[in-house]
């Protein structure tokens, strides 16, 4: 990590509800977040290997974001009361990222971690693509790309209508931007000046058939969204400080919705997966998982700078 400073309570971070006991124990140092992200990646590798199918690159690449979102105090939630009225809504529009969402939900205590290994199995609440409200913390059904952003817009509109303080965070893939519905939703979000909506786009430049710029060139997503009247922030998706600052900017932007372009390395943390489109839509085999886990475990000591029990 570039910075190893203790972040206590930056003014722009809206701390989670004081009643939620879980939040008293949130790790907020960058060291802790780094370790937590590594653990999240290990869970993802185990889950995918156990399931035998699923998507590896996106969940690993965005693990830093998910860790910060749920453990870094960026959103309000109550694990003991998952459907608490005043919670912030986290909408996973790119449903194939669900292994990392499931892993972080378990990490903060929405459900037992042991359930993670049921991913994609018959009878499991951890469906191959998420189903709305089947699992605590899962707000929408997703898989067909582009559908989550419209639902996020609907939630944000409803919140504005009722003068609610809760916010909506919508997580999308960059390949997902190929879908026309996405741009319909952006027009609508801008029309209603949904300042309570933060769209996070994982700009990892890969999709199933290869690099995004070869499959269907997206060019500057940021410039396009700025033209759609969004507040656009581009960040290094592996830098907690940058992500937290961008999320903070979203909260203090009152006249328009914010889009955070999260520049990430697909497959981040596992050398042989990084930047390889082939890993977009497949799961590691057991042998590959052993190598991946060994590499991820090295991060536990932060390169030897701290001891690891």
């Amino acid at each position: 990590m570039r910075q190893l400073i203790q972040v206590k309570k930056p003014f722009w971070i809206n701390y989670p509800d004081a009643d939620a006991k879980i939040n008293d124990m949130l790790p907020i140092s960058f060291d802790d977040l780094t370790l937590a992200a590594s653990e999240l990646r290990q869970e993802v590798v185990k889950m995918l290997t156990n399931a035998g199918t699923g998507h590896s690159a996106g969940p690993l690449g965005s693990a830093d974001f998910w860790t910060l979102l749920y453990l870094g105090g960026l959103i309000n939630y109550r694990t003991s009361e998952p459907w608490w009225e005043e919670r912030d809504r986290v909408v996973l529009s790119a449903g194939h990222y669900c292994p990392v969402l499931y892993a972080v939900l378990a990490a903060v205590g929405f459900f037992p971690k042991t359930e993670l290994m049921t991913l994609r199995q018959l009878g499991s609440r951890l469906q191959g693509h998420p189903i709305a409200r089947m699992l605590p913390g899962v707000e929408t059904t997703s898989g067909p790309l582009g559908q989550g952003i419209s639902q996020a817009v609907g939630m944000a509109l409803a919140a504005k209508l009722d003068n609610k303080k809760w916010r909506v965070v919508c997580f999308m893939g960059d390949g997902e931007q190929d879908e026309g519905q996405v741009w319909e939703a952006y027009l609508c979000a801008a029309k209603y000046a949904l300042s309570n909506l933060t769209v996070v786009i994982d700009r990892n430049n890969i999709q199933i058939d290869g690099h995004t710029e070869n499959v269907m060139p997206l060019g500057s997503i940021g410039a396009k969204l700025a033209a759609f009247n969004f507040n656009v922030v581009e960040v290094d998706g592996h830098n907690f400080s940058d992500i937290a600052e961008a999320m903070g900017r979203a909260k203090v932007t009152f006249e328009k919705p914010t889009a955070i372009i999260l520049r990430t390395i697909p497959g981040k943390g596992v050398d042989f997966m990084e930047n390889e489109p082939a890993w977009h839509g497949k799961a590691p085999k057991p042998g590959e998982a052993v190598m991946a886990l060994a590499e991820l475990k090295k991060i536990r000591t932060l390169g030897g700078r701290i001891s690891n029990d």
Partner: protein
Amino acid sequence: MISSEMFLIDDLNKAEKMAMRDGYGEGLAEAGKIDQNVVVLCADLTESTRTDLFKAAFPERFFEMGISEQNMMGVAAGMAATGKVPFVNSFACFSPGRNWEQLRVSVCLSHNNVKIIGGHAGVGNGTDGGNQQMYEDIALTRVLPGLMVVVPADYEQAKKMTLAIASVHGPIYMRMTKPKREVVTTKGTPLTIGKAQVLRHGKDVTVVACGAMVYEALMAAEELSGKVEVEVVNVHTIKPLDKETILASISKTGRVVAAEEHSVIGGLGGAIAELLAEELPTKMRRVGMKDRFGESGEPEELMVKFGMTRREIILAISELV
């Protein structure tokens, strides 16, 4: 013999013509008054869909979504997830025609409480031509798990149905035709979602109908009266289908004709055929669009050209009795 329990108008020959969409518009404004959570979304067809009444009464709860039916369905799903009761409005050819996948995943698979209103279905958009007419929407919606499908028979029933669907939790598709058509039900006519209505009792043949074809069925029955006694059942709820009422009628008459302003494939006729094939194999005829697209013409001309009038119902009956 016309059922006395249904409180239909006294003289079918003097039926007043009114548009179902007007009944819908009035019912919607009423529903908005009853429930603060009712919100209305429209895709650039406010006047045509008669949502302007609601808009005038509750401007803050009316959302103009522009020409973007896919997004409209998703936004409605998101609003429903927060406790709103969204009504999604467009022509049936666009919604659920264009946004069926959003209806399937964002609404039905997610159990979101969204009401989808398909206007100008069937011959409704007559002169606009084949692409704007919709004869496939019942088939498209009936197949979706958890989605109720309702088809009011006239202006009065559309109004009652609107209030009924607003108060029932769960996704519901309601289709209506555009032209002013004969109003046969009255304020006193009962309406329960899922309960088919025997409008006329007869012993020789059952005609199950929905939408504007209900009036055609009643007129066909009048014409045959004395020679063939026709039982007319208004199946305003295609899903869930009222098996009990339908099977009771058909087991009595032993013959059935299904009539609808929709393709003979996958609509009311399809639903009845599926039911009878398993429960009560019966001689049957289907009146509706014969697996073809529409074309430009006045709605009345198209009903004749495509064979969706009392004439075809009488012909179908004559093939059975």
